[in-house]
Each structure stands twice: as C-alpha cells, then as structure tokens.
C-alpha cells in the first residue's frame, strides 16, 4: 500500500523538483559562473546603496499602503454582502470576484485610459477649468497604488467574505439583544471573530503587491522602479546575474517572512 501511494506522488514530485525547486534554489544562490559568496556580497552592497535602498523602501511602502487600502475597502464590502439578505448581494459578490478572472494587463490598461494625459480624469479637470494643463498622473506613486488596489481588492473581498461568513450572524443579533449598538457590535463581536481571516487577506494582498510586475511596469515605468521591474531589468536588459539573484532573494525572503509571521499570528489567535 505504501509503495503504491508513493507511486502516485512520484511523477508530480519529479516535475516539481526539476521545473521549480532545483532551478529556483540554483538561481537564488549560485547563478551561472557566480559563487554564493558573490551573490551575498552583492546583496550587502544593494542594501547599503541609496539607489537600491530607495527601490526597496518604495516597494515596501507602496505594498503597505495598498494592503491598508484593500482591507479598508474590501472588508466593508465583504461585511455588507455577508450580512445582506437582498437578492442583489449575490450579483454584487460576483461583480467583486469577476475581476480576479480578468487579465491584469486588461485591468491595468484601464488606468492608462483614465489617468493618461489624454485620458478621462486630466481631460475632465481641464474642461472644468480646474487646471491649466493636463496634470501628470501616470508614472506616479498614486497611479501604482490605484492600479495595485484594483488588482488585489477582489482578493481582499473574497478572503474577508470567507472569514465573515463563518461568523454566525446570530451572534450579531445576540449582542444587539443584550443592548450593544451597531458600532459596538461591529467592533467587539464581528471584527475580533473575523480577525484571523483578515490577517490572511492582508498577507495575500501584501505578498501580491510587493511582487506584482504588470502594474508597476505600466503605471510606474522607469520613474517609479519597484523590486519586480528592477529584477526584470537585471535579468533581461543588463543581464547581471548576481544583481538579479540578490534582488530575487530580497523579494523571496520578504514574501516568506510575511507568510511566516501571518501563520504564526493565526496560530497564536487560535490558541488564545
């Protein structure tokens, strides 16, 4: 029986090793003709160089802002939908999930149409006479935050909704029955009980935002470089394997650290 079970796993495991684990580890620690020592030396230089530091700080900062905005907008959507008895709630939930299926190139392209100098917002501001010339909205941190929020908000809604759907709506009513008002009920019953799910949602959004490529590339360009666009430049334009590996290491460690912290927090929350 044991031997047969192993046979079920082996083909998949072989592909996983050959086309994922081994190449990833080899690339991160010893790219062609470069020793692990050189990669770490390059990593050390990067973390002290002001230009590279600015990229790391921008990536972390924008990632945090996008996470806060996505939870701040996504949790209320999930809360209202999970507590609604309207027949429109199903349609609104589907509208919030649908963008997950749509190509991120298509979604991000929408912001070029909205924010570009010939686009809707600058033209509207000109028509209203609020500005003298079309303002530069593309290639700004604001453009990246808007674009990444659009990409990751559906994820925040779905993850928050799953957490909120598990909180029995009867508990809301019990708290109201005991005399708590709506605000009090929300903050002392609904939020604490759905908290672990929100931590999961925030982790997914943050990890996605600090590694996304399409949106920073189209909306940030070379003026607002992030780790992902910088990694692409090192790997395809300058072909600097050591710098590419060091940048990839920063991204990978960042994502693993956040995922690890989040599951630690979830475990703490479960035992307390």
């Amino acid at each position, binding site marked *: 029986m044991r031997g047969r079970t192993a046979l079920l796993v082996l083909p998949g495991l072989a592909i996983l090793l050959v086309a994922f684990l081994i190449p*990833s580890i080899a690339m991160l620690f010893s790219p062609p003709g470069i020793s692990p020592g050189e990669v770490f030396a390059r990593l050390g230089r990067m973390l002290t160089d002001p230009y590279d530091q600015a990229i790391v700080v921008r990536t972390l900062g924008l990632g945090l802002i996008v996470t806060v905005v996505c939870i701040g907008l996504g949790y209320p959507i999930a809360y209202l939908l999970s507590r609604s008895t309207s027949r429109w709630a199903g349609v609104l939930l*589907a509208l919030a999930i649908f963008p997950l299926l749509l*190509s*991120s190139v298509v979604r991000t392209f*929408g*912001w070029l149409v909205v924010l570009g100098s010939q686009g809707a917002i600058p033209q509207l501001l000109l028509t209203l006479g609020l500005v003298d010339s079309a303002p530069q909205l593309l290639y700004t941190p604001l453009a990246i935050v808007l674009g990444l929020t659009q990409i990751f908000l559906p994820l925040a809604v779905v993850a928050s909704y799953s957490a909120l759907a598990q909180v029995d709506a009867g508990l809301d009513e019990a708290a109201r029955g005991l005399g708590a008002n709506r605000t009090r009920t929300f903050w002392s019953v609904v939020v604490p009980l759905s908290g672990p799910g929100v931590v999961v949602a925030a982790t997914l959004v943050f990890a996605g935002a600090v590694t996304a490529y399409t949106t920073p590339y189209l909306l940030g360009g070379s003026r607002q470089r992030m780790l992902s666009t910088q990694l692409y430049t090192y790997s395809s334009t300058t072909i600097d394997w050591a710098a590419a590996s060091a940048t990839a290491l920063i991204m990978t460690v960042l994502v693993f650290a956040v995922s690890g912290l989040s599951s630690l927090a979830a475990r703490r929350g479960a035992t307390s």
Partner: protein
Amino acid sequence: MRTRHPIAASLAVGGYVVMLVPILFVVVTAFTAGSTLRFPPDGFSLRWFEAALTYEPFTSSLLSSLMLAAISAVLALALGVPVALAVHRGALPGRSVVEGLFLSPLIVPELVVGLALYQQLMVGFGLDNFQTLLLGHTVLMFPYAVRVTGASLALIDPAVEDAARGLGASPGRTFLSVTLPLLRPGLFSAALLSFITSFNNVPLSLLLQSRDFRTLPVVMLDYVQQNYDPIVAAISVLILAGTVLVAVIAERTVGFARVFGGINR
C-alpha cells in the same frame, strides 16, 4: 439598497469604483472612430476590432496562449490529482510536507520562478521556450490541482469507496466508477482555475518568450509600451467577452462563487 451602515457603504462604493470603472473606460474607448486613446472618444466605429483581429502578433499569440493554457491545465491535473489522492486517501508518510511542497509555487514570486527557469532550463539546459513555458505553467497550477481536488475529495465519504472495495471492485475500478464521478465538480473547478491562471499569466511567462512562441498578455504589454492607439482596448474587450463566457460556464455548472472565490453560497 438602503443601508444602516453609511460609512461602510461609502467605502464599499469606492471599492467598486476602483475595481470596475477603469474596465468600463476600456470598453468605451474600444469603440472610438478616432486614432488615439483620448477621452471622450471621437465618434463610434468597429475599426479597432477589425484591426485587432487582423493584427498577426495578437492572433498568433492568442492561439499560443490558449494552447499553452489547455495543455498545462491537463498536465497539472494528470500529475496533481494522484497527489491529492495520496494525501487524502493513501498511507503517505509526511503528508503535510508533501502537500506543502505542492502548494509552494503559490508563495514564491512568479517573476523569480520565471527567472530561475529561464536561467537554469533555457540558458543552462538548452530547453526551448515552449517546453520551459509548459513546465513552468504546469508547476504553477499544481496548487490548484492538489488543493481544489483535495478539498473536493475530503467531502467524499471514504465509506462509499470502502463499500465498492467490499463488493469486490479493484482499487482502479473503485477510483474510475466511484471516486472519479463524485470528484467531477472539483476537477472542473481546478481545470477552469488553472486555465484562467495560465492564460492571464505575465510574470512567469515574461522571460520565457521567443520569436516563435509568445503569449498574448506579454505581446499586449509590449504593444502598450510602444504604441498609444485603441487597438489594445479592442483586444481587451474581446478578452473581457471571453472571460464573461468562462464566468457564465462556471455559474451554470459548479457555481461561479464556488469555483473562483471558494465560496459556497
């Protein structure tokens, strides 16, 4: 809808605006008669749809993307479903480690995986870019194949399978005539999720392009960077229409929110 939560409701409206309004602008722009991406559009025409459908890089890369997504979804299921079976039914030592390994492609940044496969398999090992893309996309879909079919498998009562075995069916026969039919919604969900994920992928595919085989999202990304005309809006609307079709198929079969949100409603 009337609401007793005015603050939550206004935040929610803001969220929907950010998620959906840019898509509406793409749709409106695609029907312009003018030759730039300006707003408001200059008149109405279908010329950009004609342009998009006759622009060879878009049509050939569309076919490449569809083919890649279909083959890699089938491969991921063929290799991933046995793993789900082993994890949920077999006497597998270290099953949580095995499951964790198969879910790990979700955590490592896709751009990093793309660079690793480009550098180690294409440059280092001499694989061509289609083979590398196929391997990469298959691995990227393992998490869906293992977790979605696994969740579906966990809902099937093993007693049903035991009954079939007790009545004399072989393990293979039991799988084919008992487990597999019950597993169908899970398999269908995993296949749709995998197909969509592969078709839309940019970060993993980005470094794995060649002149002979390129995927549509990457071709579009290049085009947008160099040109500023409504042809991308037109191809975007066609992709939007295809995506709506996939959503409708999902809703009619397993349930849209269940396939794509993991939500039972």
